[in-house]
């Protein structure tokens, strides 16, 4: 369909109106608060950089930032370490296309259910008398139940589960587009399985790994429900700080925390996209 300039404007108008009124303006109002000051339980409507200065000189802020980044790095690494072999096995060891499709749908299925439900599932599994502890005890591996709830362990396990589909799918889809003749050529020339994997398959699937890292890391960084429900107040990450500050009507500090969170996400997106562009595209 040929579209004139005027028609382009008309077609863009509804979406742009929504985006400006409901996205640009709310975010603007939010970040304006970072230039306000919170004092004696109320927000003082002056323009100041005091909140930034206070936030970035407080060691507590760096503790939270580091905790957020550390947690996100751990769960991203775990999701990729589990997700890569699962994607590889699904691609190479399931012959029938129908069986592959059903397994892929099963691996994707948790995303159809609310994150609150999935977090609740781990809450039941990780309880001191839950399935994980009773299985370990029955196997004779432990005598006392491990405390897996209300600390960072439970949050790490549950977040890894939540992110796993996002690690599996980019890798699985890159594997599907892989040029099999390269693999066969390597094998014909006498390369063993490990050589072929390490020198052909792994480098060629790196775009999938990087894409998975990007999705997992940014989702982990902004995770809210899981650290809140399974962390028991002991896992303090940036989204929880933004929430707490907002509840305490300390919008200025909340805005600075939120801006920090946003900048960390954007830095990760930028760095990983730059890396992605350097990799050979499949």
């Amino acid at each position: 369909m040929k579209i004139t300039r005027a028609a382009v404007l008309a077609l863009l108008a509804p979406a742009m109106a929504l985006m400006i009124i409901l996205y640009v303006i709310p975010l603007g109002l939010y970040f304006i608060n970072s230039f306000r000051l919170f004092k004696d339980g109320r927000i003082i409507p002056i323009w100041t950089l005091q909140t930034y200065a206070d936030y970035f000189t407080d060691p507590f802020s760096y503790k939270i930032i580091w905790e957020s980044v550390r947690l996100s790095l751990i769960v991203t690494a775990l999701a990729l370490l589990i997700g890569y072999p699962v994607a590889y096995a699904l691609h190479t060891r399931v012959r029938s296309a129908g069986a592959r499709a059903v397994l892929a749908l099963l691996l994707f299925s948790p995303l159809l259910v609310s994150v609150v439900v999935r977090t609740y599932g781990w809450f039941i599994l990780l309880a001191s008398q839950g399935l994980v502890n009773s299985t370990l005890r029955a196997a004779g591996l432990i005598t006392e139940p491990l405390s897996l709830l209300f600390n960072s362990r439970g949050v790490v396990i549950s977040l890894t589960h939540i992110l796993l589909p996002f690690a599996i799918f980019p890798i699985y889809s890159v594997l599907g587009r892989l040029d099999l003749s390269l693999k066969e050529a390597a094998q014909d020339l006498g390369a063993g399985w490990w050589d072929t994997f390490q020198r052909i398959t792994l480098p060629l699937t790196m775009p999938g790994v990087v894409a998975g890292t990007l999705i997992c890391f940014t989702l982990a960084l902004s995770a809210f429900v899981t650290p809140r429900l399974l962390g028991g107040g002991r896992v303090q990450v940036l989204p929880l700080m933004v929430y707490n500050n907002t509840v305490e009507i300390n919008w200025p500090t909340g805005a600075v925390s939120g801006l920090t969170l946003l900048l960390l996400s954007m830095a990760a997106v930028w760095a990983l996209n730059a890396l992605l562009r350097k990799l050979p595209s499949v």
Partner: protein
Amino acid sequence: MSTLVQRQEIRIEVQEARAEAARNALLRTTLALGVGFILLPLVIVIAYSFSSVAYGIFPPPGLSLRWYGHLLSLASFRGAFGRSVSIALLATALALISGLLCALALVRGRFPGKELLRGFLLSPIVMPKIVLGVGWFIFFARVGMQGGIIPITLAHVIVVLPFIINILAANLVGLDVSLEEAAQDLGAGAPTVLWRIVLPQIWSGLIISGLLAFIVSFDQVESSIFLTRGENNTLPIEMFLYMEKWQDPTIAALSALLILFAAILVAAVLLVARGTDVRRMLLR
């Protein structure tokens, strides 16, 4: 001599076959464990919903349906479910209409700054939801729109719009422009071309992006938590707040029903879309 070399070759082949069998077993086990890990929390929630006791013990000492009874006696969850469905349907419809027009402009239009505009339209995906949530809280308080489902619906439109634009734009790119041009040459106006030529070709994209938008809207917690005030709680927020206070299997019973709801939703879409490429896209 030759028999010795042959024997050596046979031995290597046997070794390789053994290694391949071991790898095969290992990778199949990995896949089974991966699927098991993914499904475990959902399966356990369903099993736990039939527990006879209120405290967290597994396996439960007995079976009962009492938590389903308790769930049905709580009007708050029923109301929240209805609100969540209404919000998800409304937000999806609004985002589909504005998103389709926008995707058409992005794919068929030629104008400067298109890539920048596309980046802007997709940027809500990477925006932390809690930041958006506080932004909407301040915005809707400022304009005096509080309570009810309208502010939450409008917020969800922004959350789901980028997914819809992305999927529909990808669908439109693959279309044959000559069909549209032929219709235009024969005198069809733009609305007719859109309705009779473009829409029938992107049905699958509309269904897939609509389904995704519905699910994403239905799952919003931190983006909407400051817009709810009790009387207008959405289902995930009602569950979240209930879980902060109580941990009895009522939530498990509700979760089991939600898992069933999601399964029916997907099965219905697969069934309705039989014979189209929706199935191929979903089961890819």
